[in-house]
């Protein structure tokens, strides 16, 4: 090999080759290949391709895992230059035309690289390996996220490749203050986890907290974002979701701009938004792209729906079995008439219907779409109407259950929706035992819990507890955007102002 080639492939580190070091790469190509095959027993997808490189025909070998690599870049950008492009002016081995390259000398690095889908190049007589990032795996196209569909927002959702998700976010914020911290989680899974934040907006204390928590995770593998969220949340016993997981880049970015943090987990299409507040589960991206009055109305509707979904069946039970004096006589009579044929106590009747509803919902999710329609028919006609005619449940109960179901589906966050649906069972139990007082106690317990709950050390109840008047512009109602000069305080941003100046008046501008 000529001097030029020697330089191109030289490594600054010098090794003591006299010592027989099993962890280091060998001079001899055949031994290296043997060792690599030893490292990956029972791995039929490991490809070992031996060839002669350059004009001197130096024996070389390329190792990679089949399926994790992009065949196109291996064939065209590594093998073609090495095997066929023999330069006339410069003797030696031509370099592969791939930008992501590094050299390693330890077997552990080689092993890691192969497992992560990179390709490893060995040369005869070189005690080191060249690693090319030629990763390419089966990948889904970018589509509209199913769980959080939006009418007017962007129709791009995150995918299972972390790097692409970062790119999707970067496209929204072309700012050098957007920082990304990389972590690796999981002993076996070795999942890459990225924390994204705006350096001049997000609070450094929260970043410290988040980093510490992610570093502390010691598990086999993190398969999904939800798993990671469960490892880093503040109160594992709370029924409330303490971080938002979203598949929408636009909502992630809007939270980023408010000074929150985003955690991207490689191989999972959801990203974590933290710290979170209770009220942010009632906001959706669409709110900001329609008239503010309409958005405000819809948002109020969601809060009302939250209360209905949680309390309506409980209130029904309380009114029927305990505090019938609070509703007018006429209404009471019509309820009594409808209930006269039902042999069960109100709690049993309510739980029966609610559980049927939950089962139908769960069945509808798991079944393929064509069969899923059957569930609607079975549920609507058979369970609803027939059950009433058979005298198993009352008409009013069907109305109550149906309206709670609708109310719980209004919530833009699926996680919050499931929480509400779960919470109404203890509420119903309390109502059947203590009537209205039971509901009030249950409600106060929830308020107390939400007041004390924290998300990454910031109050979860904000802007309600602690109460923040300035954040009220974007909580129950959404005021016009030019009105929200400051970022919400609940994420504790270190930079307050987000809009330069007020809207131009009249003939200005």
């Amino acid at each position, binding site marked *: 090999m000529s001097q030029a080639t020697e330089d191109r492939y030289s490594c600054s580190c010098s090794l003591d080759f006299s010592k027989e070091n099993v962890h280091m790469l060998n001079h001899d190509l055949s031994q290296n290949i043997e060792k690599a095959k030893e490292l990956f027993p029972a791995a039929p997808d490991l490809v070992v391709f031996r060839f002669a490189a350059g004009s001197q025909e130096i024996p070389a070998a390329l190792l990679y895992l089949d399926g994790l690599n992009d065949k196109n870049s291996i064939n065209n950008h590594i093998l073609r230059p090495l095997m066929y492009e023999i330069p006339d002016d410069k003797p030696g081995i031509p370099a592969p035309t791939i930008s992501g390259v590094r050299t390693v000398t330890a077997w552990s690095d080689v092993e890691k690289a192969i497992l992560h889908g990179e390709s490893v190049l060995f040369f005869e007589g070189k005690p080191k390996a060249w690693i090319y990032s030629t990763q390419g795996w089966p990948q889904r196209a970018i589509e509209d996220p199913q769980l959080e569909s939006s009418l007017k927002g962007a129709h791009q959702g995150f995918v299972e490749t972390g790097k692409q998700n970062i790119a999707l976010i970067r496209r929204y914020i072309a700012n050098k203050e957007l920082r990304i911290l990389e972590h690796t989680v999981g002993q076996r899974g070795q999942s890459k986890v990225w924390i994204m934040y705006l350096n001049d907006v997000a609070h450094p204390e929260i970043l410290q907290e988040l980093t510490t928590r992610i570093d502390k995770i010691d598990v086999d593998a993190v398969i999904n974002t939800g798993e990671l969220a469960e490892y880093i949340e503040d109160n594992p016993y709370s029924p409330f979701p303490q971080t938002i997981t979203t598949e929408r880049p636009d909502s992630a970015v809007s939270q980023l701009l408010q000074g929150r943090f985003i955690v991207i987990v490689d191989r999972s299409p959801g990203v974590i938004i933290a710290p979170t507040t209770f009220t942010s589960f009632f906001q959706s991206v669409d709110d900001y792209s329609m008239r503010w009055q309409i958005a405000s109305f819809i948002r109020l509707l969601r809060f009302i729906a939250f209360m209905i979904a949680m309390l309506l069946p409980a209130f029904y039970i309380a009114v029927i079995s*305990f*505090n019938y*004096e*609070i*509703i*007018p*006589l006429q*209404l009471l009579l019509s309820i009594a008439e409808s209930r006269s044929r039902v042999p069960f106590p109100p709690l049993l009747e309510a739980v029966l219907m609610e559980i049927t509803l939950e089962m139908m919902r769960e069945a509808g999710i798991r079944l393929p779409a064509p069969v899923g329609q059957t569930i609607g028919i079975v549920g609507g006609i058979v369970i609803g109407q027939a059950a009433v005619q058979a005298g198993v449940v009352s008409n009013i109960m069907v109305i109550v259950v149906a309206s709670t179901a609708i109310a719980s589906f209004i919530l833009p966050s699926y996680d919050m929706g499931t929480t509400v649906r779960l919470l109404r069972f203890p509420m119903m139990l309390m109502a059947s035992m*203590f*009537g*209205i*007082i*039971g509901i*009030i*106690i249950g*409600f*106060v*317990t929830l*308020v*107390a*819990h939400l*007041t*004390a709950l924290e998300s990454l050390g910031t*109050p979860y*109840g904000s802007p*309600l*507890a*602690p*109460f923040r008047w300035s954040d009220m512009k974007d909580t129950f109602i959404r005021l016009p955007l030019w009105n929200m000069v400051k970022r919400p305080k609940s994420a504790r941003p270190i930079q307050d102002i987000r809009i330069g100046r007020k809207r131009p008046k009249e003939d200005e501008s």
Partner: protein
Amino acid sequence: MNEITLMQYIFLIQGAQVGTGILSLPRTLAEVSGTDGWISLVVAWFLNFLAGYVILLTIRRYQDFTLPDLFNYLFGKWFGKLLLLPLIVYYACYGWMVLINAMLYIKAWFLPKTSEYMIVLLFAIPSYLIVRHGIRVQARYSELVFYMMMWMPLIFLVTLKYGHWIHLLPLFKEGFEPILNALPKTVFAYAGNEILFFIYPFLNKKQYAVHGLFIANTMTMLIYVYITIVCFVFFTPDEITLLNQPALSLLKTIEFRFLERVDMLFLALYLIVVTKTWSAYIYCTVFSTSQMLKKQDHSKHTLVYFIAAIACTYVLNPTWNQSERWTTMLSNASMIVLYVLPVLLLIYTFIFEKYRRWKAA
């Protein structure tokens, strides 16, 4: 880090003051001073604010000291603890008394067949969740509940159109004497300034402590005067003394097409307001005991308090009459804690500091 804002400070004081007392207040006032009772409230408000100001004058000197620290500093390690003990008992009893009063209301209006301790157990669940955390959670809770329940007094406006303002006239029907005689009746309703000893050290803007106290006491006074006048205007002066809880009886007369008994719903919701009263007192209790025993975390003490409260209720089975008697006793204790103790403390600290300076020089 463990700071509360001025607003939270105001709502904590106001929350500690407005409790169950308001429901029967119009009657107890009318019994002594007729329809001039509301003037007593204004006089009492002034006295209360003065007393609160005296408390602030004392603790202003020791900005970071809560009551246990203060006693420890002023009276020494053992004597301080000894003096603190009756105060802890006072706070504990007051908290329990509010629990018992609320329990009696709930039992009478909603759950006549449920046993007393069971209702207290129900109250204990949410309160435990609040009290076991620090002052900040307490403050946030008070603040949220205040905003959440701000609409409640507005319901009383519905009854005003049936009212007769003539009931209030003439003012000072029988001179000042009945008005002054009614003052002791207001003590239980106005008690609450004593939590200043525990919340002042955490206030982030100490220069506004007096303003905050004034606003809180004035808000309390306005609510009381408002409810009292509405009741006086609606009921005849003789009728009102026959009603146990005039405020609730007043609501009973309201009827909507969709809601028959407004009073019941009101009382049930008012329970949320009352939770912040007892949790303020219970917080002071468990905070003191944990400080006394040099414990950082007071959640165990909170648990012990609630178990004790439930046990006491189980053993004593309190009735309305007992509660009335205990309330009077507690009002006497309140008078000492609210009006006598601050003055004594102020004089003592004055002498104490003089003595210290003299000794140092």
